């Protein structure tokens, strides 16, 4: 008996001493970190031969910056999450990441087990899958139901005109503004303002023809959105700067956000959360009432870097996590974000989460959530959209039509 125990101990020692040690970077979000720490602890206990160390993506302007800086410095992790499809395409373009297709039938089996066959199609780059989608967040609008009720509303505004009417009742142009129309100054903020409005107004039509590498939003719908943004700023129904936490302080009535904010809001502003109304993004006045409103999908996935010490071991871990629906249930519990699965509304494992108004709203909009256009120069395009389109509208630098036409020309230059 003693001899067997000694052999087992020796085996464990040898396995640990010669085990593969992989570094895994997770999103700088405490709820996601918590999920991954649980997963990795369980895995490390089961597999002493493949030990994984979880690290948060280092602090930087964005996760993309941190990853690129690490790649340039040769400090990249073995695999990493929090990668959006466009960034995945950029990394694939420079040969920094490894295609999941290389794992052959094991990968196909994982896709089938996780019920994500049609979701993963949208993540294809040059006929290969470099990013394994984890979650898909439809971006939705939150409204201050308590204040709207006081103003005589039973539902949040749906169209641009309804927002103008609400603004006349609420906005004073100094301390009270109707909504956050523009999400911010960062390049990724364009996904959550103009591109979202465009998806909503067109039934999910793409804003860039990726095959022709040309802008498609220079149309009548693009002009309607340009006029909406311009009108909101011109009449001071919104402002360039809205201060800290304007939604929770009641300075604004509505803003766009993703499910990642739910837990944070519940922790920080528990009194406001029960009064939140959720809606799809606003649409032009002539948008049919019975047609579904599309929005942008804030989707993120996982990649294995080309420099990974043991790609097969990394894939084994990924496969172990995502083959079990219970792990996706734990993901929902921790992060409130809908996993990138097609059976969320039908699988009994997720039934209890549908009772939560936030999760129900977000997961039921997953079918109408469209990811950003899959181009390799997303940052430049979004930056040009800020400089030549959104900012001139915010600062009222010309007529909306002229601004739109100039922006189309400038962004086409970037695309070409």
């Amino acid at each position, binding site marked *: 008996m003693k001899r067997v125990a000694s052999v087992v101990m020796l085996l464990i020692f040898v396995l640990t001493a010669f085990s593969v040690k992989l570094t895994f970077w997770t999103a700088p979000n405490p709820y996601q970190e918590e999920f991954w720490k649980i997963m990795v602890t369980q895995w490390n206990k089961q597999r002493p031969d493949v030990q994984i160390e979880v690290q948060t993506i280092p602090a930087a302007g964005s996760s993309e910056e941190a990853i690129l800086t690490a790649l340039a410095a040769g400090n990249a992790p073995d695999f990493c999450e929090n990668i959006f499809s466009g960034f995945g395409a950029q990394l694939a373009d*420079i040969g920094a990441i490894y295609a999941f297709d290389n794992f052959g039938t094991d990968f196909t089996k994982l896709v089938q087990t996780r019920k994500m066959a049609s979701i993963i199609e949208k993540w294809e780059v040059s006929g290969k899958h470099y990013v394994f989608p984890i979650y898909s967040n439809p971006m939705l609008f939150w409204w201050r139901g308590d204040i709207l009720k006081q103003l005589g509303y039973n539902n949040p505004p749906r169209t641009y005109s309804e927002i103008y009417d609400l603004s006349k009742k609420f906005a004073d142009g100094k301390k009270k503004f109707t909504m956050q129309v523009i999400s911010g100054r960062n390049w990724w903020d364009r996904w959550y303002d103009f591109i979202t409005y465009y998806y909503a107004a067109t039934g999910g039509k793409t804003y860039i023809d990726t095959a022709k590498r040309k802008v498609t939003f220079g149309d009548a719908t693009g002009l309607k959105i340009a006029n909406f943004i311009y009108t909101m700023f011109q009449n001071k129904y919104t402002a360039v700067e809205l*201060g800290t936490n304007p939604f929770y302080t009641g300075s604004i009535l509505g803003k766009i956000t993703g499910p990642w904010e739910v837990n944070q809001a519940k922790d920080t502003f528990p009194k406001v959360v029960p009064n939140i109304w959720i809606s799809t993004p606003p649409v032009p006045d002539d948008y049919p009432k019975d047609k579904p409103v599309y929005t942008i999908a804030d989707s993120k996935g996982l990649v294995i870097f080309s420099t990974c010490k043991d790609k097969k071991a990394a894939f084994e871990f990924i496969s172990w996590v995502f083959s079990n629906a219970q792990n996706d249930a734990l993901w929902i519990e921790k992060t409130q974000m809908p996993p990138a699965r097609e059976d969320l509304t039908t699988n009994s494992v997720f039934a209890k989460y549908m009772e939560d108004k936030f999760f129900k709203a977000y997961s039921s909009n997953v079918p109408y959530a469209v990811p950003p256009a899959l181009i390799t120069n997303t940052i430049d395009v979004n930056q040009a959209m800020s400089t030549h389109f959104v900012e001139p509208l915010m*600062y009222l630098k010309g007529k909306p039509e002229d601004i739109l036409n100039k922006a189309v020309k400038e962004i086409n230059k970037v695309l070409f």
Partner: protein
Amino acid sequence: MSKRSQFGRKERVFGYSVIIPYIAYTAIFWGYPFVWMLILAFTKWNFFSKPSFVWLDNFLKMFTDSVFLQIILNTLNFLAYLIPMILISSLLFALALKRVKFGRTFIMLSFLIANVSSGVAYSLLFSNLFAVNGPVNRIFDALFGVTIPWFSDPQLAIFSICLIITWKFLGYYGLILYAGLQQIPQSLYEAAELDGANGNVLFWKITLPLLNPSLVTVTVLAIMLTFGIFTEPYLITGGGPMQRTTTFMIYMYDTAFKRIDPSYATTIAVVTALLSYGLVMLIRKVFEREVSFV
């Protein structure tokens, strides 16, 4: 007789042991990056592939790059605010310091604290301080019923960033000017006063001309500082609004690490260095005077 034989073996070993660390240091931390910089400026590289030779493509690209041209204008705009702000405030600080009788060291150190503060920390602090609903605007709103778009108006954003940079460097540059003031012999003032010169004349005819070396030093340092602005606009305005606070440094960083184009970023760095060197030489040629106290 050969030169080598002038020194014994021991002396030669000693000599080499003294210079080798310096040569090695220079080769690793200066020579290698310099050669790599030259390679990058004339090639196309994306961190992973082998650099491919593109001749002058990176340099020619700049002429059609509207962002680069915008940054040149932005830098001139920054200089137009920063140079007078820094020169006037540091001069006033130095003149005031000269009049202080007690606690001079304490005052000097107090102002130098800003200079050693973390750029990230104070940028976040100022960002909140000057936010639309921040304390500064709340005071303005209470007193005058108006709020100031410190960082959201293109021109005001440049001014606000210059204000922060001036706050940071006031103590340091003030100290340089103070040292310059200390060098001016008291006898010159006394002689001028005997000739009936008033305070105004003393300042314009003695202090300012004799402070020329220190003023030029501060101007040169401020120019180099302007070409290197990064932390404040990067954290506070993100280079906006309307790309008006985008600086050479921000563009280099974004080009290298967001656009994955380190070659073009290096080329921008080379040209930026040449531009700042050119401007420094111009300023020295126009304003620098030889000063003698004898």
